[in-house]
């Protein structure tokens, strides 16, 4: 434990230093990608808690991110702005009344997302394995259908605009660091051990006195909480949200991130985020026409997505441990000793 902490503090200081100097190093585009990376680190690390640590393949993050995004957006928009934005129906009274600062708004996003997760846990964890995947996938769709069909709350498919952009990299980076620390705190506690036990062998875990339903629900709620916060940050970063932002594609991206990084490793989730979000920008050349040894190919929009799905399959087939396996940065140094 002590050793882990010492290493951890070094990483923490490096990260803080990096965040502090980043505005002087990167231009706008770089900063935008960096903000994206930090938000996706929040999402990936919390997704990894339920998916990698607890071993429950849930496909719901898009739903929780959507809840978080809408709650934060509604809390930050002024009453006048709401009247102006809502084109289809008048905003409902509690939507108008919801008016908070950024931090309480983000916390509320997390709380609402985890409350929904709590309600959902009952049908989801009644059965094991694959059903979890399909129910959570369905839940993501239902959230979208609700967002589209509740214009008095969400402004329907037009969505919400003009969300005040009150964050910068210190916010996204800072919240990402806090999220990583809190989730690591869960992982390295008796609850985290119980989650891993559930992943390794659910029957044995139960036979050793672990209430597996409770543990899975805890992981699910915690993960939803931070996904909600990440969603809130995403809304503020983009300044506009609509239901089409929260499709299964978002979940798929997170899945690639944590699989590539190594299911169950928080460090892996961070590396995966940098690779996938950064790499997705870098791989843009795949979509445009290419000049390969004088032979000019046609542009193939969408080729990037083919590459990503292939990466996912190949990692699963040939390198199932991903980049980090189940290890963390600190473990690598410990092995060297």
């Amino acid at each position, binding site marked *: 434990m002590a050793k882990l902490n010492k290493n951890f503090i070094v990483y923490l200081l490096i990260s803080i230093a990096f965040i502090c100097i980043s505005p002087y190093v990167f231009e706008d585009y770089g900063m935008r990608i960096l903000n994206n990376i930090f938000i996706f680190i929040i999402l990936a690390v919390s997704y990894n808690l339920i998916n990698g640590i607890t071993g429950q393949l849930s496909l719901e993050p898009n739903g929780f991110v959507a809840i978080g995004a809408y709650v934060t957006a509604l809390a930050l928009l002024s009453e006048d702005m709401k009247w102006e934005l809502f084109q289809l129906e008048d905003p409902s009274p509690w939507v108008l009344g919801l008016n908070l600062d950024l931090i309480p708004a983000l916390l509320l996003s997390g709380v609402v997302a985890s409350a929904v997760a709590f309600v959902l846990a009952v049908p989801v964890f009644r059965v094991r394995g694959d059903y979890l995947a399909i129910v959570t996938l369905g839940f993501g769709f239902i959230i979208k259908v609700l967002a589209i069909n509740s214009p008095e709350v969400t402004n329907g498919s037009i969505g919400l605009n003009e969300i005040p952009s009150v964050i910068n990299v210190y916010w996204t980076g800072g919240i990402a660091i806090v999220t990583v620390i809190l989730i690591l705190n869960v992982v390295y506690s008796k609850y985290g051990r119980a989650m891993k036990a559930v992943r390794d062998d659910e029957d044995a875990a139960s036979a050793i006195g672990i209430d597996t339903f409770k543990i899975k629900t805890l992981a699910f709620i915690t993960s939803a909480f931070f996904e909600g916060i990440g969603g809130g940050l995403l809304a503020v970063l983009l300044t506009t*949200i609509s239901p089409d932002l929260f499709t299964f594609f978002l979940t798929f991206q997170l899945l690639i991130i944590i699989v590539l990084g190594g299911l169950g490793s928080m460090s892996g989730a961070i590396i995966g985020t940098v690779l996938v979000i950064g790499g997705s920008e870098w791989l843009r050349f795949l979509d445009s026409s290419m000049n390969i040894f004088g032979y000019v190919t046609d542009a193939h929009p969408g080729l990037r997505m083919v590459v990503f799905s292939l990466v996912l399959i190949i990692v699963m087939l040939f390198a199932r441990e991903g980049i980090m396996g189940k290890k963390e940065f600190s473990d690598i140094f410990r092995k060297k000793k």
Partner: protein
Amino acid sequence: MKLLNKVLTISACAMLSASIVTAKEVKIGVIMPMSGPIGGFGQSANKGLEVMHSMNNKLDNGDTVKLILIDNKSDKIESANSASKLISSDKVTAIIGALTSTNTMAMTKIAENAKVPVVAPVATNILVTKRKEYVSRVCFSDAFQGEVAANFAINELKQKEAVLITDVKLDYSIGIAKIFKRAYKKLGGKIVKNVRINSGDTDFKAMLSNLKAMKPKFIFFPVYSSEAGLIAKQARQLGIKAKFLGTDGMTADKVFFKAGGKAVEGFYGTNLFSSDAPKTTELSKKFDDTFTKQKNESVHPFGVLAADSYNIIVAAMNKCKDPADNVCVNKNIRATKNFKGASGVISIENGDAKRSAIINIIENGKEKYLTTVNP
């Protein structure tokens, strides 16, 4: 975190090497959904842009215009990233895009902050240009089209009772429907039924069977081509005999005609442009010919509008001493008066295009020009 640096450096290098400058050139960024759920629309729009660019890629002062296309995968996050990249790394002077209103609104804030003009080809929602200094569009807004449709229904089709089919998943559809409802009622019409569908649905038979029992005379359905084609086909299968009026989204893709087949005969549609309409501008004819020659297909409305977005930016650049001066270019874009574009005559006021609408009727699987409505 080193890795991040590396990735960014590599991507920067890749971008630099891709755009080695030989002569002086001005850059226009293009953000289009080339893949993802609405990738088809982006691809159609981009074709028009390519053709227009091949016809005219020089400014009056001899500078070359370079287009930098970025795929936003039909996604908001990507749209915002793309705008950021175009502005801060590629240093573009103006941006064309990003097709749908929702994706466009994800990038306008970034452009607004950087004072880079955005010209939206087909983002029709009224919010897109509202309170924006640097955002303009060449299409008319949902409000105008909704009014045109209501007027046409009452005055020309003489229909006082309408069934309204709205695609709740589509901001475009709800935008038009809302204005239509208001205008139609004002003119003495009555909406007898308001039906909601979801784009992506394929089976409308249950909904249409219910409608059939009502024996509707007139149906207004501001929806996109796929759904419009399927609704038309299934309505015919069920024996619904009503007059249908659609909007520019209906005929936006030829899949409407193909899938609809015989069922779409006699449908009315409001549009910005019709390849059959009398050519009001010289460019319109020329563009039409070149497009057909190059792409071997007829012109797509999204393609023409993308081409006109380009034309208006180029015209604005020609009026500036330094064509790369984004503030000047924006000023001139927003001062566009009676511009004779490929899609017709366009004036821009407060960022919104003032332009005439056309009404077509579908005959023999083609749009046939009926009338022009001026604003």
